């Protein structure tokens, strides 16, 4: 019942937003005093059309993209699905490499107060740096735009993973470690059967944060380096003055981001436990 209520409210808000949007972008009366040839040069505003596309324009464009999301007609004309796919591959690649590095390292940091204290300054200094600040360095060293954006994703994913893993491992309840000691459980078995399950919810929360940041950063990174990806798509459509496609891309980015977030939230639920 609560669910139905909230669904109804959501639909009402959606209708209101669409209404405001449609009203705000309604075409005005064409200014007939302007010479039609000048009007053509001035663009839509002189013709009385709103410069921002309304919901019906965007809806039509979404339908157009959904009908053929994966076409590829040369470097400047690829389907939105193709571009999202390029971005997702980069995000998942950079994120995956970050998991491979940061989870074991976080494990070591979390289980050793010495490592915790000695690595703290590095993490504190590097964590607040915008990942895009690394881009020039990456481009110079790696000399490949696509790999550089993967590196940028890697570096922005690493910090939340590292910090959450270390925190999760450091806050494993001492009594569980004592249980492991009393049962003469070796280091490896303890890591996999006690520390990892105990820290798993915290580690997965770190993953959720990381992939959220990575999805934010990839758009900006691809705008910078160009070539392919949803970020480049947005930039390209802006150059084409197609605000309709920019808005479609905004929705597409939002939907993919939500799917990534919900996917990791589901995984977190799988490994979380109630004390």
């Amino acid at each position: 019942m609560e669910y139905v209520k909230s669904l109804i409210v959501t639909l009402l808000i959606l209708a209101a937003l669409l209404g405001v949007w449609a009203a705000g972008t309604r075409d005005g009366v064409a200014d007939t005093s302007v010479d039609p040839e000048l009007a053509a040069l001035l663009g839509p505003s002189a013709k009385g059309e709103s410069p921002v596309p309304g919901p019906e324009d965007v809806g039509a464009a979404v339908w157009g993209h959904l009908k053929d999301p994966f076409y590829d007609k040369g470097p400047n004309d690829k389907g939105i699905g193709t571009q999202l796919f390029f971005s997702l591959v980069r995000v998942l690649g950079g994120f995956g490499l970050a998991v491979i590095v940061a989870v074991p390292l976080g494990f070591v940091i979390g289980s050793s107060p010495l490592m915790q204290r000695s690595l703290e300054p590095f993490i504190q200094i590097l964590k607040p740096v915008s990942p895009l600040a690394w881009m020039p360095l990456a481009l110079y060293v790696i000399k490949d735009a696509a790999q550089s954006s993967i590196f940028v994703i890697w570096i922005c994913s690493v910090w939340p993973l590292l910090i959450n893993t270390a925190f999760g491992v450091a806050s494993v309840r001492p009594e569980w470690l004592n249980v492991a000691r009393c049962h003469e459980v070796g280091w490896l078995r303890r890591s996999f059967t006690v520390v990892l399950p105990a820290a798993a919810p915290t580690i997965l929360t770190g993953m959720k944060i990381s992939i959220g940041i990575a999805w934010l950063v990839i758009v900006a990174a691809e705008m910078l380096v160009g070539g392919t990806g949803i970020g480049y798509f947005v930039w390209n459509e802006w150059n084409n003055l197609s605000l309709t496609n920019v808005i479609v891309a905004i929705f597409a980015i939002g939907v993919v981001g939500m799917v990534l977030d919900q996917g990791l939230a589901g995984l977190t639920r799988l490994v979380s436990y109630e004390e």
Partner: protein
Amino acid sequence: MPPPPYRRSPPMLQAPLAHDPRLPPDPHPASAPPLIEVINLGLTYPARRGQPPFCVFEGLSFTIQKGKFVCLLGHSGCGKTSLLNILAGLQKPTDGAVVLAGKEVTGPSLDRGVIFQHYALMPWRSVLGNITFAVRSRYPQWSKTRGREHALKYIELVGLGEAANKRPSELSGGMKQRVGIARGLAIEPLMLLMDEPLGALDALTRGSLQDELRRIVTETQQTSFMITHDIDEAILLADRIVLMSNGPNAVIAEIVNNPLPATRTREGLHHEAMYYPLRNHLMDFLVARSAHVERTTIHPGKGRVPPIIDVQPDPTPSP
């Protein structure tokens, strides 16, 4: 000030460990070598931030025979948990040694089962999963099914057969501690160590778990060492009650033999002739004497060997 230098006393000289199989069974089991021997145990925390070193206890010496149930009674803060942690090998003493079955205790091991006051169950594992974790540690060579059967046997023993697949969060406090007890027993330890295992439970649950423990230890003859501050619990469960004086510098004041018959039950406790003399003796210790126990000199290598007390019946008024 630096911590006191680490001294480890030599183990006490003992009668030969193994009983010669050609001889008839020992008619005086008390003279058999003890299962566990605590020798001149001391624990001092080093000086810190202008505070002098803190001596929790010193010169503790006592033994526990195989198959006996020993309770430790003492006021809060006298070092009971520290003593149990040292027996478990989770903590190191600053002085003295613990010898279990002829071997010095140097760390935690599977020949001691520990039952924790706050259960220490792993919440991401089911009841069965918590027990099989212990069983797999103890018997790594066993097959999965064999380990499972063994675990289920102990889950049945503590009366949790119905709840084997539940998570700890779905259990009441009393049920959680039953899991803790099953886990302690499932590794079939030489010695079971319990730190106020029923202390966090309400009176009714505590009573039924006391009955359960009594039944299990009489059934299995499990050698056990348990901390409690409940006098009736000690009288019901213990064969011997170790009395610890108040800290700091706590000592073992005396060891009291339980004169009640082995058939004693919780409901019938107060009908036993020796119940009140024993209860009064223990109560008198906790209320009055525990603060003024005389510290005799520590015998080098032996510590302070406490007197073993047999409580006398109340003098019957002569006709």
